[in-house]
């Protein structure tokens, strides 16, 4: 199987799905870059190069560079989804959801319910998320808890190139609105990705690594952090199981509960801020549904309750590290 980057895996998914289904269109800021200018066309291929080459293949009617008007084009994408298209809209940084949250939260998410089940809204909103790029507080957040909270939305957070392609293909074919979050520090990571199209169902967690002493639950970029922690723990004779839920809505409660019950010791790693987060949500799931099987307190390793800082040393201290995960695991592994 060919090795491909996370970026390339996403690009392949977009190419193949646009070729397969003429109702798939894309809109966002600088999806191509250089629109209306005299120089190079498709100059950026997206702010992170994910949409490179789509303009050439599918033209400007289907690959639409928008004004910097998130409320308008996310709303337009919702309206187009409601009326027969399968739009993929891109919010360059998920932080910008602040200016278009109404269209996501009050409109697209609720059409089907408010309209008594008569509407479907096959909309994908892609957005980058996450800290690590020295970009300060407004281009770096991990806002998936906000979307996970809202009924009507599905929330997908791939952690590796293989999942990125399969989950994006599923997102585009899905008939519900999907928030698809791409950690910008993962774009250059490489993994095996088949050339052919394949989908990964939502709500199916991946057991990244089996183990028996401690369960580490991690999503997005934190899966790699958890894997590194598991390697270090193994060197100390602690066997860690790592699970990546892959989607926070729907959440694969069955797999999480099965593993938590079997192992009895749990660490949850989450790059989001700690209050009302996916970490607290999964923790509550365990406390509610398998309390008797737990042998130690659930440990949460998260960002602090602060904005993302700019200074490199502060930002590095903000993001959960393998060391922090190892420390948390050790604090409960031998109790």
């Amino acid at each position, binding site marked *: 199987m060919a090795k491909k980057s996370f970026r390339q895996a996403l690009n392949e998914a977009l190419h193949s799905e646009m070729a397969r289904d003429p109702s798939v269109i894309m809109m966002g800021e600088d999806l191509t870059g250089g629109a209306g200018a005299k120089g190079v066309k498709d100059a950026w291929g997206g702010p992170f190069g994910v949409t490179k080459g789509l303009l050439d293949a599918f033209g400007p009617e289907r690959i639409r560079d928008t*004004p910097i008007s998130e409320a308008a084009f*996310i*709303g337009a994408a919702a*309206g*187009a989804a409601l009326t027969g298209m399968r739009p993929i809209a891109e919010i360059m940084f998920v932080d910008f959801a602040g200016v278009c949250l109404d269209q996501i939260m009050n409109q697209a998410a609720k059409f*089907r319910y408010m309209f008594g089940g008569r509407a479907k809204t096959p909309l994908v909103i892609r957005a980058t998320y996450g800290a690590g790029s020295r970009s300060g507080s407004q281009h770096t957040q991990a806002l998936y808890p906000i979307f996970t909270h809202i009924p009507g939305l599905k929330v997908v957070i791939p952690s590796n190139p293989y999942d990125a392609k399969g989950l994006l293909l599923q997102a585009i074919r899905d008939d519900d609105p999907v928030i698809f979050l791409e950690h910008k520090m993962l774009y250059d990571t490489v993994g095996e990705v088949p050339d052919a199209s394949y989908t990964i169902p939502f*709500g199916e967690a991946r057991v990244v690594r089996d183990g028996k002493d401690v369960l580490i639950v991690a999503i997005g970029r934190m899966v790699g952090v958890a894997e590194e922690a598991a390697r270090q723990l193994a060197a100390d004779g602690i066997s860690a199981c790592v699970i990546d839920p892959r989607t926070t809505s729907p959440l694969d409660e069955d797999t999480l509960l099965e593993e938590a019950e079997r192992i009895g010791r749990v660490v949850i790693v989450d790059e989001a801020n700690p209050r009302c987060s996916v970490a607290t949500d999964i923790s509550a799931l365990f406390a509610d549904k398998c309390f008797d099987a737990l042998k130690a307190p659930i440990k949460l390793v998260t960002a602090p309750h602060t904005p993302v800082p700019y200074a490199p040393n502060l930002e590095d201290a903000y993001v959960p590290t393998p060391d922090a995960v190892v420390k948390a695991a050790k604090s409960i592994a031998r109790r």
Partner: protein
Amino acid sequence: MSGLQLPHDELVSVYRTMRMIRRFEERVMDEMSTGDIPGNTHLYAGQEASAVGVCLHLNEDDYISSTHRGHGHSIAKGVEIDGMMAELFGKASGTCGGKGGSQHIADIRKGMLGANGIVAAGAPITCGAALSAKLQGTRQVAVAFAGDGAMNEGVMSESFNLAKIWNLPIVFAIENNGFGEATANEHVSAGSFTRRAESFDIPAIEVDGTDVFAVYTAAGEAVERARNGGGPTMLHILVPRYYGHYSGDPDNYRTPEEKAAMRQERDCLVKFRKHVKEVSLLDTAELDAVDDAVEEEIDRAVAAARAAPLPQLSALLTDVYVKYL
């Protein structure tokens, strides 16, 4: 009033729909007082000529979006009043199965993309519907109804911009009833709404929204432009709002005198009757018969809504997703 000549049947239909909206709203206000319609509602009475004059140009598969004051637009677009009344009563037979209510009545089958509880939120959604039509080459047109209050939401200006740069088949029908909730428009709106649209090179037409023929003429130009690939138009439709902002609003910020004058001088139904009588298009008896028929239909809708079952409790959990787990 303009001397516009509509065919006889269409004239009757125009009157019938305006009358239906008026009586629907008045009856809803009455039924609210019994306590059997839950919550609150925003009534469209007074503004009928706007919805009817615009929607006369639309086909069943054309799209509209509406505001929190959405009953009139729904009726004008052909949504069945039985379902609407049942929806207001929160019944299973409602347009949205009782899950939407007054503020979210939508009927995709009729191209009605939803009343909306968020001011101006329908504008970009309607741009999206217009984009669908354009990309699919269907010659459908999309109309975004919005109020004067919506003009001060940023997304309205964003939608004007998007509609123009993408040359979308859309009409922005801005109904200015003089009040955003309880605040006078002059107190909160700078400049001119038509000039705002014109600054995007969107043609704007200001029209008396109590004259259904004037609305019909202006909307005709706008819809034709959209259907023929000429892009967006903004209609600035001046209308009276007969009730307060919502059904529980004492409306004491308007004087009794101005409210009385509004009803005397700016009633679209009275004006219509006067005009068609003057030019001998329809006789009074024919219009009276329409009134009676409307009354019967509304009586039936209310009786059916009252008798209809509430939604099953299981409906609480359905229709959130097409498929979740």
